[in-house]
């Protein structure tokens, strides 16, 4: 990066990075609004999710689970487990941003994939704080605005399936997932989770198969750990 030289980076360059990410992702609130109303949630419920949950994958997961007939607790559990990654983002961000304690409860609402990505990419504390704030604000405003517009649009269209809009949610999951599949471990986890999720779907209550599929992560880690230990034994 030619702009990230020495001690700093121009504030305007940070703002530009942050706005770029905030605008691009903020627009995908349309897809959420359409999906949520298309799946039978009211406009008010749809907007409440974007205002109060504000972490896209969890919102899509909750709406999908409710539409599939899941009970509220299992549906919320799936959405919650998807949100757990934000705790680890917060851990990194609290070191990088050095926020005063009183500000943290407010900043917490914006601790998500995109704000973390922009913040981590900045060279100084000042740039990180600007990056976090501008990305968070842009994304929060746009995500909620486009959720509302998407929901209104879905109400106006009526049959959202005829427009292929039911493909928006799985495509969003795919777009989030694909960049994560970097090594054989991630691919093994994904493959096992797909098999578990599909095979168990017809036999377990709605919402539960996703939670069981999440066990693919510890299972693959366990097998991987055993392999490494076995190799170490053989080396001795």
């Amino acid at each position, binding site marked *: 990066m030619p702009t990230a030289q020495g001690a700093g980076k121009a504030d305007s360059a940070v703002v530009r990075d942050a706005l770029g990410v905030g605008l691009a992702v903020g627009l995908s609130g349309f897809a959420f609004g359409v999906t949520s109303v298309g799946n039978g949630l009211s406009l008010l419920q749809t907007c409440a999710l974007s205002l109060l949950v504000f972490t896209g994958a969890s919102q899509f997961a909750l709406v999908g689970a409710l539409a599939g007939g899941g009970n509220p607790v299992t549906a919320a559990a799936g959405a919650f487990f998807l949100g757990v*990654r934000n705790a680890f983002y917060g851990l990194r961000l609290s070191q990088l941003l050095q926020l005063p304690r009183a500000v943290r409860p407010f900043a917490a609402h914006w601790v998500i994939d995109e704000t973390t990505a922009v913040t981590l990419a900045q060279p100084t504390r000042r740039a990180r704080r600007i990056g976090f704030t501008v990305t968070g604000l842009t994304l929060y405003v746009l995500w909620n605005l486009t959720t509302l517009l998407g929901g209104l649009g879905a109400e106006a269209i009526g049959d959202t399936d005829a427009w292929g*809009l039911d493909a928006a949610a799985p495509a969003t999951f795919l777009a989030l997932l694909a960049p994560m599949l970097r090594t054989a471990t991630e691919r093994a986890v994904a493959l096992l989770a797909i098999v578990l999720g599909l095979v168990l779907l017809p036999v377990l209550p709605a919402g539960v198969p996703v939670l069981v599929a999440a066990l693919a*992560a510890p299972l693959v880690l366990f097998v991987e750990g055993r392999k490494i230990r076995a190799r170490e034994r053989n080396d001795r």
Partner: protein
Amino acid sequence: MNIWLAIALTAAGCYAVKLLGLLVPAGVLERPLVQRLAALLPVALLAALTAQQTFAEGQQLVLDAKAAGLAAAGVAFLLRAPFLLIIAAAVLVTAGVRALG
């Protein structure tokens, strides 16, 4: 009412984990195994959700236009298309296949 309960639980839970990360002292969550698990958990959940929402209608497995739409999204990703274009590809191809079928 059930839907509002689910919304309240999700909002409270998701906010709590966000805040937790900002408040706990560094080191508590920094064990390598915990970090590995935290990175892999979304992979498992997103993979299962992608598959289910593509190949299921309620509790039934189905193969319909959405599969073609998701294949298009996969191609768009491989061509390094931006996030919104990946979703647009899925929606347009799904609608197209339905219109033809």
